[in-house]
């Protein structure tokens, strides 16, 4: 899998894309693959405040639930409503249509602390070898 080079990645397998001061957050290809078919997504409401590394929702497959952790802090300005009817978007297009929330960014240095595509690819490879 080629992870987009303009995204940043957390060790909890979320990605962040920064665009005009707005961060879009989703879970990575690797995360959705581990989880299997996503059947339900629990997302925060618009206006809630997320803190970096805090759990802000959950992604469910038939037999597993994974908490989703905020890779960076921010205010939720949009949630992906399409996922309510079509959670499978997380499987089919995790880095695009399957995005979870959009945030206003407080602290750009938080993004710098995340992994880049190359580092994340290596991180995933090392994790699977365990």
């Amino acid at each position, binding site marked *: 899998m080629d992870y987009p080079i303009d995204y940043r990645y957390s060790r909890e397998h979320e990605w962040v894309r920064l665009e005009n001061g707005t961060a879009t957050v989703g879970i990575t290809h690797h995360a959705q693959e581990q989880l299997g*078919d996503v*059947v*339900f997504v629990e997302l925060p409401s618009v206006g809630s405040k997320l803190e970096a590394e805090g759990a802000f929702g959950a992604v*469910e*497959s*038939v*037999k597993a639930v994974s908490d989703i952790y905020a890779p960076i802090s921010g205010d939720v300005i949009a949630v992906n409503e399409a996922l309510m009817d079509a*959670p*499978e978007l997380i499987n089919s297009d995790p880095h695009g249509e399957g995005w979870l929330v959009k945030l206003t960014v407080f602290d750009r240095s938080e993004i710098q602390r995340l992994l880049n595509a190359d580092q994340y690819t290596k991180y995933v490879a090392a994790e699977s070898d365990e």
Partner: protein
Amino acid sequence: MTRVRQHQTQDELLVFERSSPGKVGYQLPALDVPAADPVEVLGKERVRESIDGFPEVSEVEVVRHFTRLSTWNYAIDLGLYPLGSCTMKYNPRLNEAVARIEGIVDAHPYQPESMAQGLLRIQRTLETYLADIAGMDAVTLQPAAGAHGELTGLLMIRSYLESQGSPRRVVLIPDSAHGTNPATAAIAGYETREIPSNREGMIDLAALRLAADDSVAALMVTNPNTVGIFERDIAAVADILHRQGALLYVDGANMNALVGIARPGDFGADVMHLNLHKTFSTPHGGGGPGAGPVAVKAHLESFLPVPRIREEAGGLRYDWDRPKSIGRVRAFYGNFGVLVRALAYILAHGGDGLRNATVDAVLNASYIRRGLEDDYDLPYNAPSMHECIFSDARQAKYGVKTGDIAKRLIDHGFHPYTVSFPLIVRGALMIEPTETESKQELDEFIEAMRAIAREVEADPRLVRSAPVTTRTNRVDETLAARKPVLTWRGTPE
């Protein structure tokens, strides 16, 4: 595949789709009192229109409907049911018969004690026998199932510790535990902290020593644990807890390995529950009812739920005057009919017979383990008790997982083993044959499992697409969860 052959079963609609207006399958006697007009007596607004969508079928249609459905099920009456940790043993029909004796089955929970002495005696006798089996001092029969027993036990621990000064905050749970343990701890108001297992699949004593501080109320442990291994250091575990003023809770899910051989009360348990629908042969009935009696040591006796049964000169009595009791956990006296069945099982076996059953259960599991260890990976080397755990490590190389092997077992005529549990074993196959099975049945099962191991190497795709012989193919659980349809709402046009 000598065990199964294609067999016709009938298709059957949902009962709502069978329904046609005006059909009835019941008959009531004519009223022997004047009729009461509901609208007049209750007022129009309190009376319902007819029950929308409710079935209307004849008696023979009822009989055929449920008989057809029944033929779509696997059952212990059809063969080995090797579900690890579930103890699917034969359900003696005598138990069903005695539970339906008039005077027992139609007894009302509020009939006067003087008119219920036989029913109190049944409970009292069962309490005594279970206390003996567990090595404990007192037993409540009130909890309706294992998880309910866990809750009862933890609430008693909570009350006991409170009486000592503080209920404390934390319940320790090994990473191999049943899901009910942490779920129960949460409902009893405790945080849970996980204790890792060591390489042998047992509680890591060093980790326990670190975790067991004075915030810990109890450790919940299953023994033999969920990998089927006896926790050799259980006495040390109890000692570590007791030194900190914490208690040892034993989950009795695996008591079928111990009855007559070792008693939790002798290895340090303060509280434990028993699953009558596992160890004591009451039928699972497709998911219940069960019963989860809780046994305690003397220091917890005064916290047991009310009512207690007391022996007095004039007979047995319910004792409500128990100021330290945690209260009631269920209305009336628990799943009484299940208690009757369990007592019948104990009476039929007697002390020696119960012990022999344990020996046979462990022997059967050991025999299966020996029969499969050449073909399947054994994650732990310690001897197995009443169940054995393999992993799918060898089959995974062919892209076949434990869930696939389980489904393929259906094609070979057996119910699957327990899949993917305990969580500490990647790709677990957990097999518990119980004492019910003959050597012949075990040999057939072993042969089926070996045949699957060969199929995995020769044709992994076949195994991945299993089951192929059932009337229903692999069911789309993802669709069910994405678009939940939980009730029938009419046939779509």
